[in-house]
């Protein structure tokens, strides 16, 4: 058994409306950050997990994303793993 940290980066699917991103972009503009475009708000989830190997850790993390962490209809995810033991 080995331990891993996983960082899951979830973002709204391209093309889908992102009201929060729009609002934040508006707020940035009004603070004078004019050159900012395409703001998209997502989620960052960090966790530790145990697994036999990097592949099996990836499999587990993917399963967690598909089942719970990301909404399959509206969100995309990326997983970044690091072996910590």
């Amino acid at each position, binding site marked *: 058994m080995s331990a891993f940290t996983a960082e899951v980066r979830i973002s709204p699917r391209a093309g*889908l*409306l992102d*009201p*929060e991103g*729009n*609002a934040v972009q508006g707020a940035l503009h009004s603070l004078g950050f004019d050159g900012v475009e395409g703001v998209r708000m997502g989620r960052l989830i960090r966790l530790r997990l145990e697994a036999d190997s990097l592949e099996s850790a990836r499999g587990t993390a993917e399963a967690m994303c598909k089942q*719970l*962490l990301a*909404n399959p*209809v*509206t969100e995309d995810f990326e997983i970044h793993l690091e072996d910590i033991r």
Partner: protein
Amino acid sequence: MRIAIITFPGSNCDYDCYQAARHVIGADARYVWHREEALPEPDIVVLPGGFSYGDYLRAGAIARFSPIMNAVSRFAEEGGPVLGICNGFQILCEAGMLPGTLLRNASLKFVGRKVYVRVENDDTMFTSRYRDGQVLALHVAHGMGNYVADPDVISELEADGGVVFRYTDADGHVSDDANPNGATNGIAGVINAAGNVMGLMPHPERSVEALLGSTDGRGIFESLRDHVMGVTSAALTATMGRG
């Protein structure tokens, strides 16, 4: 008539639904804790509003894995009426029992106030007591009511009577001002293709008594009662006929 009200950790409109069902409609209302695996043979299932699991992650995302949800989806598959209100609507979307999803309000703020919705489809078991175009005064109270779905899903809903309620002003006109959360096309409530699972963001259970300002929400409960009674008496006739 028996109404099962599913209570998740963090549900907080279960009580209101219970009161409305029991005292206004005269139904045999029962709370069902989310850990249960079976329903108490209800005629109707209600997923009430609130903040199941604190709305953490995404509203409804964790609740939909509750043990009771298997029974709820079986009940729906068999044609039983399932009504999701507010957080209940969000859970139904997360569970894939209704299309689309509910994002944060466009204002990024929680919105708690009176709104008007127009009945867009009175030909359902939830809305038979209303007329198309009728405008209802109801309360909303949510932070994530911004309904979105793929464009073709929206077109399909719009074309096939899947949109049951739409935010309008008091005169029934659609406008951005009248839309409390930025929902696509002002969609406030949708129904599945089979016509037995409906979700809506406004709270009909809070508008069933004149003392509290509006009775416009009664129609949903009364429509369901008509539906259940109708089915029951038909079934009764059928049984007697066979006998």
